[in-house]
């Protein structure tokens, strides 16, 4: 009750500001609590993996859990020295991911450029097919893609008179089986098309005026000026190819051809008592992506953000 005559409207307002500030502080504390809690959650699995990769195999489940005592490098020695399949998987993964990334980025840029700049028959229809295919769940083409890469859609091939038409590549258990379907991507083409559509034509036109053909204009002018976009698409592709699981699982058969994720899963099945080795190996799958992520963080975040804003 404000019976005291000293109360002025001014001090009442002061109290209001004080109340607002307290409320802000409370919210700030809540916000920080949320952020810190989720940050701890996010780091925990990788932290424990790191700790236990430095502990002996027999201690895979033994405390202490916060610090690697007793400390050992045995698991890494196993991976890099005694178990010679492991370096192979790393090399396989690097090869496949790099080839997929380079080819996909190039093909997507070329197709995107054509959709944005060049007039050709059936362009609209093709682009609509592309848009629809982006909505299609990948699982529906899994079985036919497997048949095409491997034994063929029609057993024994199609015959047209004397002519035998193969309906499959017969590439099972080879790296090309993993690479080939990966180099064409609808989303990538869509992304590059949107990019080139929003891109000023002047530079290209100047080059054409100087007598440069379409191909040399594309490779000498267009590709270099779209490098940010290409890098964004490249990072997205590389991460996907590096972590890909279901497709290589189906088409790769012999351990020496495995990629790292398939290899790790296979190793876990064969040597399930050596979980510390699995953990150390897991870090080899995580670390390269992590390093690339830290270097190119800006582009990673851009690429993820762009998937959202372009669609809406």
């Amino acid at each position, binding site marked *: 009750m404000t019976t005291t005559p000293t109360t002025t409207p001014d001090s009442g307002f002061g109290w209001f500001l004080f109340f607002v500030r307290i409320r802000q502080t409370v*919210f*700030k504390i809540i*916000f920080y609590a*949320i*952020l810190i809690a*989720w940050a701890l959650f*996010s*780091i925990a*699995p*990788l932290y424990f993996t790191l700790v236990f990769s430095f502990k002996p195999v027999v201690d*895979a*489940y033994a*405390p202490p859990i916060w610090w690697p005592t007793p400390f050992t490098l045995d698991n890494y020695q196993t991976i890099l020295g005694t178990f010679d399949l492991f370096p192979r998987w790393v090399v396989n993964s690097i090869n496949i991911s790099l080839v997929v990334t380079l080819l996909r980025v*190039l093909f997507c840029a070329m*197709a995107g*450029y*054509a959709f944005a700049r*060049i*007039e*050709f028959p059936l362009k609209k229809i*093709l682009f609509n097919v592309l848009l629809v*295919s982006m909505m*299609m*769940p990948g*699982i*529906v*083409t*899994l*079985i*036919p893609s*497997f*048949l*095409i890469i491997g034994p063929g859609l*029609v*057993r024994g091939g199609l015959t047209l008179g004397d002519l035998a038409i193969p309906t499959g590549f017969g590439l099972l258990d080879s790296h090309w089986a993993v690479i080939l379907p990966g*180099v*064409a991507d*609808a989303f990538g083409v869509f992304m590059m098309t949107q990019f080139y559509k929003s891109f000023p034509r002047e530079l290209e036109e100047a080059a054409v005026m100087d007598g440069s053909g*379409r191909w040399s204009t594309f490779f000498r002018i267009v590709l270099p000026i779209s490098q940010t976009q290409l890098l964004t698409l490249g990072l997205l592709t590389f991460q996907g190819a*590096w972590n890909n*699981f*279901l497709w290589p*699982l*189906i088409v790769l058969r012999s351990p020496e051809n495995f990629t790292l994720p*398939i290899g*790790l*899963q296979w190793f*876990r099945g064969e040597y399930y008592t050596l*979980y510390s080795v*699995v953990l150390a190996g*897991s870090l080899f799958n*995580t670390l390269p*992506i*992590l390093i690339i*992520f830290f270097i190119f963080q800006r582009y990673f975040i851009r690429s*993820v953000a762009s*998937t*959202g*804003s372009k669609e*809406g």
Partner: protein
Amino acid sequence: MISAGRRRKLSEAIDGYLFISPWLIIFAIFSVISLGYAVYLSFTSYNLLRPPEWHGLEGYQRVLNDELFMTKALPNTFKFVLIVVPIQTALSLVLAFTMDQKLRYRRFFRTVFYLPSVTSSVVISLIFVWLFAPQGIFNQITGLTNNWLNDPATAFYVIMGLNIFTTAGTLMLIFLAGLQDISSTIYEASEIDGANAVQKFFYITIPMLRPVIFFVVTVGVIGCFQVFDQIFIMTAGGPLDSTTTITYLIYKWAFRDTTIKMGQAASLAVILTFIILVVTLLQRRVIEGSGSSAER
């Protein structure tokens, strides 16, 4: 005689096709032909040994009469979507909203939150198998003794938790980009009117973000309906088929079972595609219908 104009048009068309051909050929083979053949296969029975035999709708009938599909895979898949999508959407929205406040160390938090999304599904699944083992770290910290992944009552929830954990970071980044498009003057105006953070979240952020929410939910639904890697590695559909989902069942029929059932698996893949299509369309109506402005 061809006029110069027509010749230029022709050469442009040829260039156009040369530019798209590397992509188009692969795309045609692995997407268009593949899709067509998947539909064809779905009407046949095919075990790789003999040519596909046309059976009409029998494959679909067999799927719908399959006990594993009707009593496990179908309900499990819907359960997975209905639990994971709302939680991961809400969680990543709250995280993004929190990140959008003017707080310190935002870059640090953003990086850390994205870590689980950078880690591959295989690696994080292998890690979770170990964390949730009977003598694993999760039990050690919580003092529990459950055998999480071998218990039909808990296994599926661990996989759901893992999915929420790994996707929250990506979805948060998408939301964050959307949030930064909301003009700060709207927030400032609401502050003058005395709105607190909770009110701002419900009365400004959520309505303004509707298109992004639609996108995130769509991506979530499509992804969750196709969950595979985590299930393959953590439980292989078990224990007692409690974690068998539609995608896992497709894989099982086509590639894992001793009697290969590629036709039936193709039928199921087509059914799944329809389910995803219908759910996506329904969800679009719900999200766009629930508010006035879906314009962006």
